[in-house]
């Protein structure tokens, strides 16, 4: 019996574990370590319409239980991803979720149109929340109406379901979630990174060349859980949760909060085998917790206690 399979719009997942966008490139590097077929899905690095070099280095800095990155959406552009990266990934039996970003609406729309053509792209992840690019990005992620409008435009052209990736850097995450739901989103992914910073003790200057960067890793897990808990109760959209996940226990905690699948980002850098390890450990953890199928965990923190089966009539 498969105790881990999950069905979400466009995504027929053998298990709910996938690497998070930007933390797994286009899969090539990690394919040295294990067969990518074991993954539930792969969220590929953000695609923009034109190629981008990204920000100057240093692009990463460490923090307590976290890291800052300011990669700046470096990528070869939508066309090259379509013609070079996605065909390579097609050798694996694993659905791809393509992360798309842009500086203005048109870029997003055009990128969505291009990327959603690929046969192995089963969903788009609309990245309205990248904190590391100078234009656009952040406004899309913090102003509800702008986000709704963008979602609608992308939905119009996309050949596959659209998940919107929410930024945690907002006063009201529920409002953002509802807006993109209104805009026609098929699902949510959350959270992207918190905006943070580190300073160099000797120079007094920011460590990152970009000054600020996105905070990820275990440090942000409680913020992610809280937002998923809040949003999952107020929208009908399925949520792919992320933020600091490192273990099977973390995965279950995200499900309890309200997630229906999860993505693992920073932890891949710490342990390249983290995704297969989690997938392997989940069944015995479910045993220990007395859970049949992982889908039972979704929203357990706020769902009213259902009667256990053996207590019924």
């Amino acid at each position, binding site marked *: 019996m498969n105790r881990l399979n999950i069905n979400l719009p466009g995504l027929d997942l053998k298990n709910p574990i996938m690497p998070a966008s930007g933390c797994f490139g286009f899969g090539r590097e990690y394919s040295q370590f294990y067969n990518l077929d074991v993954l539930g899905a792969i969220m590929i690095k953000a695609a923009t319409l034109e190629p981008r070099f990204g920000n100057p280095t*240093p692009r990463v800095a460490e923090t307590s239980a976290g890291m800052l990155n300011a990669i700046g959406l470096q990528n070869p552009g939508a066309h090259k991803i379509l013609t070079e990266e996605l065909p390579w990934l097609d050798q694996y039996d694993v659905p791809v979720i393509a992360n798309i970003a842009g500086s203005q609406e048109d870029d997003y729309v055009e990128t969505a149109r291009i990327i959603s053509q690929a046969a192995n792209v089963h969903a788009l992840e609309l990245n309205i929340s990248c904190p590391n690019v100078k234009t656009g990005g952040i406004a899309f992620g913090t102003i509800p109406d702008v986000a709704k409008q963008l979602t609608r435009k992308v939905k119009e052209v996309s050949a596959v379901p659209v998940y919107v990736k929410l930024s945690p850097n907002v006063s009201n995450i529920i409002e953002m979630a509802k807006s993109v739901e209104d805009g026609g989103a098929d699902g949510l992914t959350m959270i992207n990174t918190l905006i943070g910073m580190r300073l160099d003790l000797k120079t007094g200057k920011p460590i990152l060349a970009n000054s600020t960067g996105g905070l990820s890793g275990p440090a942000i897990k409680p913020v992610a859980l809280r937002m998923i808990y809040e949003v999952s109760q107020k929208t009908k959209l399925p949520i792919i949760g992320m933020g600091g996940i490192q273990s099977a226990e973390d995965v279950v905690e995200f499900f309890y909060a309200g997630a229906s699948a999860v993505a693992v980002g*920073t932890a891949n*850098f710490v342990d390249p085998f983290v995704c297969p390890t989690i997938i392997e450990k989940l069944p015995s953890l479910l045993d220990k917790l007395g859970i049949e199928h992982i889908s039972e965990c979704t929203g357990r923190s706020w769902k009213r206690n259902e009667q256990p089966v053996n207590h019924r009539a």
Partner: protein
Amino acid sequence: MIRKELCEVIRQTEIADSIFEMTVKGEMVKDIRTPGQFVHVKAAGGYDPLLRRPISISSIDRSKNELTMIYRKEGRGTGLLSEKKTGEAIDILGPLGNGFPLDEAKTGETALLVGGGIGVPPLYELSRQLKAKGVKVIHVLGFQTKDSIFYDSKFESLGETYIATADGSYGAMGFVTDVIRELKLQFDVVYACGPTPMLRAIEQNYQDKKVFLSLEERMGCGIGACFACVCHTTDDPKGFSYKKVCSDGPVFRAGEVVI
């Protein structure tokens, strides 16, 4: 092949002021190809600190499956590493990257090995292998001060060795580049590892020679996935073309990337 392995600490010694030499045992030694490759070390279990630390491989002993690292105790990560005792296990990812190309120096030729501070370690294995294939090696090594000098006699046993210190407390005072110029050293190939200004000066001064430089950059994954460590290529310095220090480097031919 890159392995993630629990390696056993064979020995650890403080060989100069805050400079530690640590030897570990692991299967990954079998996969080391060139001197100048590095490993990515998890200084502690858990998330304190979270990320791995890149450390060059300074020498290997294939018969015993042992590799040695030399590192300066800097912050939290290297601080924790320096407390590891013989017999403890360390989570190491490696070998990573591409090292110095040995075949660029032919038997009978002279190679100049230039190291600055904590850039010196990978030159040691390089020097041993060059010497073994009959290349004459000259070393010019720069340190901050007398107390931070290490491996000087080991390098001397392999070839001519000149030491410079920034404060003049030992050897020549000043930069390694000054030493090379003043001594009018003659050579066919240069291999260098050290601070970026040093590498820039060498690239500038020896445009007519074969020069190989090992770069440093803050890293996330160490394997080419996160794009933390990219640099522009020289043929397209403002464009989209790039190399990753972790997986394309850390050693590049002078003129290949913008440093």
